């Protein structure tokens, strides 16, 4: 329970604080208006609502760019497809025919050690594992 003397003491302190505030000089209204007038003549700054719309408008190209990038990446070949540049290199070096020949030799069990070494050096055996059968067939 509150001590009644504290209650009246609080009342007294609040009254004292209010009196101290009332004793302070009032601001000079003329000087205040003098400073305010030039600002009244200034054009009003953009409102918060307008600013929000501008921000949304500025975001549209960014969102569109992100959507396009997402679509582009989604259309890229998946990791288990043959990488496009590997196919291009193989085609350029005209190796598909050669590989086809080597494969048929391998099937026959006649792949000599030297050929295997060359294939290993070129890391072509691994690449061949990734190539779809129809690609090798079409090159033949």
């Amino acid at each position, binding site marked *: 329970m509150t001590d009644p003397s*504290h209650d009246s003491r*609080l009342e007294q302190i609040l009254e004292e*604080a209010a009196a101290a505030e009332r004793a302070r000089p009032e*601001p000079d209204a003329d000087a*205040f208006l003098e400073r305010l007038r030039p600002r009244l003549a200034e054009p009003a700054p953009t409102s918060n609502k307008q600013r929000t719309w501008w921000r949304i408008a500025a975001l549209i190209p960014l969102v569109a760019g992100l959507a396009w990038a997402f679509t582009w990446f989604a259309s890229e070949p998946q990791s288990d497809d043959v990488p496009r540049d590997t196919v291009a290199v193989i085609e350029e070096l005209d190796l598909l025919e050669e590989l086809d020949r080597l494969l048929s030799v391998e099937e026959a069990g006649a792949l000599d050690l030297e050929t295997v070494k060359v294939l290993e050096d070129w890391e072509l055996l691994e690449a061949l594992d990734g190539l779809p059968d129809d690609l090798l067939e079409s090159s033949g």
Partner: protein
Amino acid sequence: MTDVDAASLMLRFQRGDEGAYEQLVREHLGFVVRHARRYLHDDSAAEDVAQEVFLRVYRSPHLFREASNFQGWLATIASRLALNELRTRRRKHWRARSTLRDDHADQRSEDSRDWRPGVNESEAPDEQVLREERMELVHEAIGQLPEKQRQALWLQRFEGWDLQQIGETLQLSVPAVKSLLHRARAALLKELQPALGQAAPQATNDEAESLRGKLLGGETA
């Protein structure tokens, strides 16, 4: 100035009467500065807030509804701006200068005063120090109250508003304002308990001093 006068001045201003606007500024400047100063504890920053308040009144007079309490409207804008200013200061690690300052700051009057109660020349220096400490304590305790509680307390105790006016400003019913003030008072009592316990009322000291003087001086009642 009553709120009816303020409302009719606003109406005149809404119809383009710039004189009515200046009159409104003159009549309510003191109130707005006092209100902002209670948050900011700094006269200069409080005047900056007042500039923003009256700029908003000038640019958006249509936002004032004729039926509402004009000073309540000003108090709401001033509170919002002062709280924004405090938040900005906190973000900037309490930079000394107000962030509301503008190009017109150099025109500001030189007699900028800080947050101290008026000095009473007739008061003994030690009593003055004690009084300043008391004021600092009470303002600090009020500052720690939740926003609605301190606004209600300021408006009632420092501005003399009635419960109805406070309710209109804070958008609360009269019983809700009563409860708010009751809780504010309880919180203040709790916060100021040590200070209230130790300091004897000054009036009692003065009376004792006066009585002693009378007795020593041989005056008779």
